[in-house]
């Protein structure tokens, strides 16, 4: 169910757009901030609140990479696979990360701590290779540096 706080935020957005569909991506983003991902059931709740059909809303949602339709880990590890990172050795790093976390791109670790997803560009090309965990940027990555970072998140869990 949508919380009152979510409803209020979405309602404000609808008002600003002058129509309810205009607020739909923001509505999904608002809900996802809270739930982490959007289940079918919650997709229906949001659609109903906006006066859209669930299929219509899902059609919009499925277009965008950052809208998650299945459960994700506590932390999202976004791996930049863009050109600078690639030129600076992203492939080797990815092999290491895959091994270290035991998951491929799109996978979630068994302990539910990390989901690793590819990202087209983090705009950190000057300090490639780069990853972003949640909203924190890590640059000039090496396998050793990655291990240290992951350890910190594990300790904090």
């Amino acid at each position, binding site marked *: 169910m949508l919380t009152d706080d979510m409803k209020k935020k979405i309602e404000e957005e609808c008002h600003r757009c002058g129509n309810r569909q205009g607020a739909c991506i923001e509505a999904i983003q608002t809900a996802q901030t809270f739930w982490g991902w959007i289940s079918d059931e919650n997709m229906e709740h949001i659609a109903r609140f906006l006066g859209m059909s669930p299929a219509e809303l899902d059609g919009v949602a499925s277009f965008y990479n950052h809208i998650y339709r299945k459960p994700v880990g506590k932390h999202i590890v976004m791996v930049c696979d863009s050109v600078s990172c690639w030129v600076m050795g992203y492939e080797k790093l990815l092999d290491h990360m895959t091994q270290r976390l035991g998951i491929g791109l799109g996978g979630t670790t068994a302990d539910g701590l990390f989901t690793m997803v590819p990202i087209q560009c983090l*705009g950190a090309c000057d300090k490639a290779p780069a990853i972003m965990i949640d909203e924190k940027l890590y640059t000039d990555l090496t396998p050793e540096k990655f291990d240290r970072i992951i350890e910190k998140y594990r300790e904090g869990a």
Partner: protein
Amino acid sequence: MTLTFEDLQQIAKIEKDKQEGIKYQINVCVAAGCLSCQSGVVKESLEREVNRRGLENWTRVKGVGCLGLCAVGPLLYLEPDGVYYQGVQVSDVSEILDSLGGSPVSRLDCSSHLPFFKRQQKIVLENCGKVDPESIEDYIAEGGYQALYTALRAMTPNEVIDDVATSGLRGRGGAGFPTGLKWTAVSKAFNKTKFVICNADEGDPGAFMDRSVLESDPHRVIEGMAIAGAAVGATNGFIYVRAEYPLAVRRLRHAIAQAERLGVLGKNVFNTTFDFEIKVRLGAGAFVCGEETALIASIEGRRGTPRPRPPFPAEFGLWGFPTLINNVETFANIPPIIRNGGDWFAEIGTEKSKGTKVFALAGRVNNTGLIEVPMGTPLRDIVFDIGGGIPENRRFKAVQTGGPSGGCIPEQFLDMPVDYESLAKVGSIMGSGGLIIMDETSCMVDVAKFFMEFCMSESCGKCVPCRVGTTQIYNLLSSITNGTGKSADIPNLEELCDLVKNTSLCGLGQTSPNPVMSTLRYFRDEYEAHIHDKTCPAGACNCGGSKEAK
């Protein structure tokens, strides 16, 4: 509340008065690049130590926007000495404070990088490294919002548009459409409701200019948008930013809230009838949304697929209303143009490309970072003087401009001036400003394949040439790089590229063959070596055919 010009000056004066008695100012870069190597911690440590030593009356520590030389961050800039420090750690703090007024800490000094700083001309980035991106007062102290005041109180909307047209400014998003013409079209569109949109969906791989401008000087973009709103008759603005830029989003939201509080956004700005508000919209991860009609669809809450133009957004844009869409850097150029006049701007650059351009230097180059140079600067100066050349004494091979829509420029054209026309002539584009340097270890077929894979996965799927064509091109490139290419592949590639270029619906598809075409043009021998000799001259691909190529 409504702000007057006197209020602006008063705010500027209060800010300047705070500087009274300050003998030393330590500017710490707090843009994303330096923050990711702990500049935030360095700044806190400096502040703590200044207070502990009781130096706060004459020493000021200030967080500032991007200083440019991101390669060696965290960066510090000391005023009034004009010293840059690189790679500063918390353990250096004491020594830095000890050295104030004496000779600089030579171990941290990065004056060897002087050409990097000296060869630039800063208009868009003039406040970067100078103002605190989180303080509107600091922006005002540097003359901020005076251009908006002038545009509203001393000029008619037509005069503002004339000034922009005179300046010769062209869209900095990549295509280079004359900004003055766009503004005129929107201002002439007959409708009470109009919108201004700032395209900050900087998705081009290898580009980070817009991120840095938004993180370092968000008020400049807000001011540019407000001036545009006043000129074309719009009261509502949207900034569409990528969600991958959380710091830029935070700074932007903070800046908008400050601007609303002071009354430079909102109702009756500067006591005129002009109302303007700006709303931040977050992208949800789709490269194609950088295309203007796709971006509009996304703001409207639909799938971000482009539509054929005309009608152009200037007539039929957001929710069908006339809409002005410009890129971040374009808006960032507006306040100085209004402040100094269009003629001033038109003096800078080349005959057809005016002003400066911000470039993001990345890849196999010593000084990676953000630079701003006058249009027409030779590529060689950018790569070797400002960029400091190629690391490990390797040989320069190509510079890639314009991301997946651009091309690879070989050494023979390095003395070419960088402007819209020259880049187009050699088969590339200006693009948004990413410059990726490649050395002898980069395989050009692999590079073309990389960009094609990108376009293939980012194609929205609406039109057949782009959806199917990019996949077909990618498959051909894959077989060439893994050693199973055939002689017929090259003519087939050329034919496919021609088809995709001429029949795709939007810019993403139309320009996607550029990396392939430009590498075929300048590095055909590499393609042939893969196909006929089953070798990769750069040693990057596994052409033996025994193993799956990476």
